[in-house]
């Protein structure tokens, strides 16, 4: 196969038929280029969004109490369901539950420090909430079990609250007034996956005691030990049944106890991305087919155009196989080189976009401590996929060239020569 003379002959032909070479090459390079951009963009979008998602615990689940809407065991509908600390103890030890945190709602949340004040949300919680909501500690610590046990008036401030009230001054150990009651700042935090940090966290026991909650809880935040949607739904069902038995309501009564499972949401979103990926692949395949048709077309024309030349070559002693070889090797050479150029240019462009996106990401991350805002990240294409696509075009060009080349090689030289 490798014969320097043969390649010299092919190179000489390519060099002297620049337009033909360019047209063949362009349709291949363009096809690959477009495919790279399509797949790269799809991957970038997918990467960006899933990264945003993953910052929150994806296996988180929330429960909140309400009013029954279905009569149950002789009890009328319209009954209020109230969660208490006892429910927390039950949930905490339920199979499949990892982290549990209860919350008691506090009305009006006025925060003040010195002359600065503002309206923010104070969330009462157990220490586990940090894991459920992926809260990041910037300074100090989060609420711990000792805070709960001793009902200490500790508070962890969101970064935005700290910025507003303290303005870069040291806050740890200082006292902040929440609804006029002083709380000691023990930490400063950031919300996982968020860009606003306007929540403050206080121990749930303190919240109940200070704001007249007795043992009441309004909702629970949990993480569950599930990797599949089925598992997660099974655990959710178990939680609902346990609570329903305890509070005597129908387990299917969504209004008595609301529940939201984030994994379901994640899986739903991932399904949308799957659909987008399939869509991109369909368009990509379409682009490839257009490329294949383009190459095939040009090869048909090339062979037609070269019929006379083939006739001459045959008259002076070219065998059919050498004629086919000449046409095909030229086509393979052009499509391979052009495919590679398309590949490099496509990858280059995506890398350039990546550079710009990463710069922007860094800028937004710098102002927001690592949590950059982006829906587009790492728009790269699997090299195997790109190679396969290029190979496909090369093969298509070869087949498209082979059929007419074989026909041209088979006809009598005299017929080819007559063709003018």
């Amino acid at each position, binding site marked *: 196969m490798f014969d320097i*003379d043969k390649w010299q002959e092919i190179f000489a032909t390519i060099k002297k038929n620049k337009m033909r070479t360019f047209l063949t090459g362009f349709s291949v390079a363009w096809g690959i280029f477009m495919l790279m951009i399509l797949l790269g963009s799809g991957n970038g979008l997918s990467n960006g969004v899933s990264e945003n998602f993953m910052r929150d615990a994806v296996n988180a689940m929330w429960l909140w109490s309400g009013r029954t809407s279905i009569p149950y065991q002789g009890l009328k509908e319209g009954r209020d369901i109230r969660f208490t600390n006892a429910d927390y103890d039950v949930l905490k030890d339920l199979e499949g539950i990892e982290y549990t945190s209860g919350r008691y709602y506090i009305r009006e949340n006025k925060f003040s420090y010195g002359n600065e004040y503002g309206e923010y949300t104070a969330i009462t919680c157990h220490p586990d909430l940090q894991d459920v909501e992926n809260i990041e500690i910037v300074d100090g610590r989060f609420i711990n079990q000792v805070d709960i046990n001793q009902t200490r008036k500790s508070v962890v401030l969101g970064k935005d609250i700290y910025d507003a009230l303290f303005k870069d001054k040291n806050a740890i150990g200082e006292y902040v007034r929440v609804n006029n009651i002083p709380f000691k700042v023990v930490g400063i935090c950031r919300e996982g996956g968020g860009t606003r940090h306007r929540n403050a966290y206080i121990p749930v026991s303190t919240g109940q005691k200070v704001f007249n909650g007795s043992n009441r809880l309004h909702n629970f935040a949990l993480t569950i030990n599930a990797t599949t949607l089925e598992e997660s739904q099974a655990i959710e069902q178990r939680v609902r049944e346990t609570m329903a038995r305890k509070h005597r309501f129908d387990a299917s009564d969504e209004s008595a106890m609301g529940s939201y499972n984030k994994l379901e949401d994640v899986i739903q979103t991932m399904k949308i991305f799957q659909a987008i990926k399939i869509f991109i692949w369909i368009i990509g395949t379409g682009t490839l087919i257009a490329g294949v048709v383009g190459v095939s077309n040009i090869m048909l024309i090339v062979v037609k155009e070269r019929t006379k030349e083939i006739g001459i*070559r045959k*008259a*002076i*002693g*070219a*065998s059919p196989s050498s004629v086919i070889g000449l046409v095909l090797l030229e086509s393979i050479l052009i499509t391979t080189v052009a495919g590679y150029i398309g590949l490099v240019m496509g990858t280059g462009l995506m890398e350039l976009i990546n550079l710009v996106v990463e710069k922007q990401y860094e800028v937004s991350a710098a102002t927001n401590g690592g949590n950059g805002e982006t829906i587009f990240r790492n728009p790269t294409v699997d090299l195997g996929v790109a190679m396969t696509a290029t190979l496909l075009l090369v093969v298509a060009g070869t087949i498209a060239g082979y059929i007419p080349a074989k026909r041209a090689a088979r006809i*009598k030289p*005299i017929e080819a*020569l007559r063709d003018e």
Partner: protein
Amino acid sequence: MISLKNVHKSYVTGSNSLHVLKGIDLEIETGEFVSIMGSSGSGKSTLLNILGILDNYDEGAYYLNGSLVKDMSEKKAAKLRNEMVGFVFQSFNLISFKNAMENVALPLYYQGVNRKKRNKIALEYLDKVGLLDWADHLPNEMSGGQKQRVAIARSLISQPKIIFADEPTGALDTTTSYEVMEILKEINAGGITVILVTHEHDIAAMTQKIVRLKDGRIDQIIKNGDLKHFQHQYAKELETA
């Protein structure tokens, strides 16, 4: 050298069949200089193509150098063409994107001669036809006569036994026609059999043997000695016309 026995050939186009050669018997010896004549449609080009293994025939037998040429594989035919014969065409049939030297060298490429060597040989042959200075020129930069000389050099480079020329002077003016004929005569003098197709009597008259075709059959074979008579007859035909 060449022996044809009752060769038939018809062209089928769609449902029509055109019987072009209706039984040709012909013997040509080594070193002869033969012209094939005939009115258009008499089958002279078809005959030449069959002789040159550019086309196949339907019936009969064709012996080239003692071996039967029939239903040959394309590969074998190509090899035989490459080694045995050289072609000169009316429309020159040079490859337009190759310069004179590369065109001349091409048959050697198919013999597996390396580039350097075949280009050197090509230059020698170009020199023989007086076109050494035109080696770098593309066909479209040359005159008809020059192109035909390049084509002749190409047909000679593989050192063939036979040169087939299909109306080699058909596209040339009289002066260049005669120049080309001089070259062909020289080739023939070197021992190579030359067979050409022409409809020009003056060109035919320069050969040693004229085969006249009429309606797919051999009408008349005029040998060298009869040429004077032929020329006389040709002059008479002109007078009556």
